[in-house]
């Protein structure tokens, strides 16, 4: 089961025939993801990785019934690709592309707002429902099937958490990499809500980092509405103020955006916050057993 994507998802790849798209699409197919085709403007009518290529998302949706898209389109064209997917009726749009201009993302986010779709990313590792569908660039084998949902801004830290959860004898329902950009589609709160409502998910790992106020917002919601144990970690306790730490959004601009401030709010809201990223898995195991 899990959320957002599963074995019944019909997935298309935008930017299918490029090198990134080709590599990761084949990994996704190998994992067992139901990839039904791809889109590369100008290459419609051909075949790639044994799947049909279309010129437009609308055509791909019409011919294949696709409801999920993953975007590997270069940064200058990626926001347009998001809007094209939304307009064509794709329900879950996962954007991997890093480096999209902020002005483009403001527009793309606005465009998708009223179009009944869920945007994940950009600049994210994607979404994986363990054992069913991998819509992203994460190493599939790390995500052993289980009962823990993961929400994270970071790629490799998500793998780290999934690995620890597996080694603690648990495993993952769905892991959602929401991305580290200043403007992202699905927020921490929205991802947490999805997992809170998923009957298969028994516990949630929420991983954030410095910058923005997504985690405190999710924490306040959890305090009022949470029904499952949540383990939290915020990366960047030691990051200096005013410096961008890799992710464009990872910068402490105000007092509420530091790791210490976020952790304090999360603790007040009943989240089990670990200071060491090495303790994510064991903490989850303690809470669930």
């Amino acid at each position, binding site marked *: 089961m899990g959320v957002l994507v599963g074995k019944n998802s019909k997935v298309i790849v935008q930017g299918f025939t490029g090198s990134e798209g080709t590599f990761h699409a084949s990994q996704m197919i190998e994992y067992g993801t139901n990839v039904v085709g791809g889109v590369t403007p100008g290459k419609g009518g051909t075949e790639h990785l044994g799947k049909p290529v279309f010129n437009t998302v609308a055509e791909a949706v019409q011919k294949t019934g696709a409801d999920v898209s993953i975007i590997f389109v270069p940064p200058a064209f990626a926001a347009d690709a998001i809007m094209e997917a939304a307009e064509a009726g794709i329900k879950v749009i996962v954007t991997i592309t890093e480096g999209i201009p*902020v002005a483009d993302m403001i527009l793309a986010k606005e465009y998708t707002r009223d179009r009944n779709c869920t945007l994940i990313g950009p600049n994210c590792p994607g979404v994986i429902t363990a054992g069913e569908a991998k819509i992203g660039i994460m190493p599939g084998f790390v995500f052993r099937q289980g009962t823990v949902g993961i929400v994270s801004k*970071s790629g*490799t830290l998500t793998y780290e958490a999934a690995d620890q959860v597996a080694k603690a004898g648990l495993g993952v329902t769905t892991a959602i990499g929401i991305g580290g950009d*200043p403007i992202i589609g699905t927020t921490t709160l929205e991802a947490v809500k999805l997992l809170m409502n998923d009957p298969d998910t028994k516990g949630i790992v929420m*991983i954030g980092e*410095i910058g923005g106020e997504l985690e405190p917002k999710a924490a306040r919601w959890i305090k009022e509405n949470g029904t499952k144990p949540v383990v939290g970690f915020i990366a960047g306790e030691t990051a200096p103020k005013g410096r961008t730490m890799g992710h464009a959004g990872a910068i402490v601009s105000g007092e509420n955006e530091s790791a210490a401030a976020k952790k304090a709010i999360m603790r007040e809201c009943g989240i089990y916050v670990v200071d060491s990223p090495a303790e994510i898995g064991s903490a989850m195991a303690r809470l669930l057993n």
Partner: protein
Amino acid sequence: MNIHEYQGKSILANYGVAVQRGYVASTGDEAAVLAKKLKEETGTGWFVIKAQIHAGGRGKGTVTETGSRGVVLAKGLEEVAEKAEGILGGHLVTLQTKAGGKLVNKVFVAEDVYGPGASEPKEFYMSILLDRGIGRNVIVYSPDGGMNIEEVAEKTPERIYKETIDPLTGVTGFQCRKIAFALGLSGAASKEMQVFVKQLYAAYIGCDASLFEINPVLKTSNDRIIAVDAKVTLDGNGLLRHPDYIEMRDTSEEDPLEVEATAAGLNYVKLDGNVGCMVNGAGLAMATMDIIKLSGGEPANFLDVGGTADAKRVETAFRMILRDGAVKAILVNIFGGIVRCDRVAQGIVDAYKNIGDIRVPIIVRLQGTNAAEAKELIDRSGLAVHSVITLQEAADKVKMVLA
């Protein structure tokens, strides 16, 4: 990407925003020549000479070598060269710089815009930036211009106003009017302010900015509205649309190590600690810094080697970390996903051999794809490298080598 005031003003002027005019100079003589030209063009009799560094608070800052302020007034052409020389080549210390200050390579020689006229001049504050919480740009403004806006926000928050911009319409006419009224303007000055706001927003979108801070925006004594200062930060991702802005980057304002790292495809931030680290992924890199601290050390850097941690990058990264004399140990933390750990391990072994004389202990934690093979490869290499697999083991090892 941060740019200088004179560069920011040239962008603003290109979009039709009224700015305080001037020229940039690198020597006192050049400043004098340009001041003369400026006098002919604008009629200004006095000149404002402003240090061009990437830090605020210049007017109250002091040039260590000469005692001059970072912004000075020359009351006549004959004073320009000397006043400019009091700033150029010196280190300007402001509230926003480090204790040693910043070397000033250029000054902006600007017209004096505070001359007398029909009404009193008045200073306002205006900035445009992204409100991450709502995913929209906002115009923040205040009638209290010319002073430290953080102070205004703390003491009189009710005097700071905000206008949220709908991305599909841009700033609207009624919003421009609202801003002009809130700033207490009427008549010609109000009309000028409305045009100013409209153009300023157009410039912000047009140049792919991530911050405009105009402090002060001045209403002159003859009711013109102009940008007297301009702090402009450009969205690094937006530069793909503006190749001409790339040359505005002033690498002398940045840490030379960081400039070198960027060129090598590494994301590096220098810190003041004693344990260096090399990690793949920004989130894991920050988490690794945190674990160093929890183990009794202090992180010496943030370093994300990215998704393709090949031998060459690993070697460059090692060399950068090792150049920092304060580093007492190095923690390599790689979670191999698509990247195979044994390849990274080989890269580490090769880099180690190429660099030769490495005297600080290195702890290598490789997890994920082929982690066991990687550990064996490192253990067999005979190098003085501590190889571990879990993050907890890595933390324990850091504690051990620091003890």
